[in-house]
């Protein structure tokens, strides 16, 4: 009993402190994407928070989505999500991926990422500032350490 508790707490600690991110642009304008790439660069350096980007969805814990979900990217988005090992989380970066943003009412845009996947954290902004993304990822860390996941 105590042992499982300790193991669970260790796992939570590790999951909280090691967030491997995969980034997928679901049809956005690049603005949020370059802000996410900016997070890797010296000024923001999210590696100090244990966050690194991964190339393969199999290695990732968090799917960072940018942009509104267009009809074309929806299947790809769901496929990438299904390739990720659980526990997995989805973060919607930018107003477009929250609700569709300025592309609301467009025929080819379905809307926010929540139209296709369960979203854990919404980060507003157009584009979301790197600080805002960091704040969102820290919120996600809280969620992980509480054990909430979709």
């Amino acid at each position: 009993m105590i042992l499982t508790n300790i193991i669970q707490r260790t796992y939570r600690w590790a999951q909280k402190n090691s967030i491997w991110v995969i980034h997928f642009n679901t049809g956005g304008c690049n603005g949020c994407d370059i802000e996410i790439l900016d997070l890797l660069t010296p000024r923001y350096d999210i590696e100090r928070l244990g966050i690194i980007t991964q190339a393969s969805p199999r290695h990732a814990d968090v799917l960072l989505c940018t942009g509104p979900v267009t009809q074309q990217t929806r299947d790809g988005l769901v496929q990438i999500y299904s390739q990720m090992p659980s526990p997995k989380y989805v973060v919607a970066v930018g107003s477009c991926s929250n609700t569709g943003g300025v592309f609301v009412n467009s025929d080819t845009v379905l809307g926010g990422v929540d139209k296709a996947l369960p979203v854990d954290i919404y980060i507003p902004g157009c584009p979301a500032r790197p600080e805002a993304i960091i704040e969102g990822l820290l919120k996600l860390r809280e969620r992980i350490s509480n054990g909430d996941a979709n």
Partner: protein
Amino acid sequence: MDKIKKRFTLLNAVVEAMIKQPETIKYPFAAMELPEGFRGAIVFDPDKCSGCGLCVRDCPAEALHINKKSREEYTLLHYPARCAYCGQCEDSCRHGAISHSNKLVGATTHKDDWVLVFKDSKASQE
């Protein structure tokens, strides 16, 4: 000589970076610095608003919404998750009632909680 110097530009930069302090900001552990003119969260001055709806008309993302019962009775809603933070409402408002502050809009787990009701003029009169 110049060629040799050029050849080692990258090595120089790397060694310099090793010696110098890293350029990373302290952000999550310290307060952030945003410039004065940064277009962040929307702030609203209910006293100045006349309920004309110009901001709603010009908003490119349908982030502002006005529920108008009469000239005096209306509610102005703002959805931060839709907002493009473009500053058009600030430009369109003739009374200076709506503007951007330089505060960051925080992340959230439920975007639907986010509708900010700005003004309910009936409520304010009562």
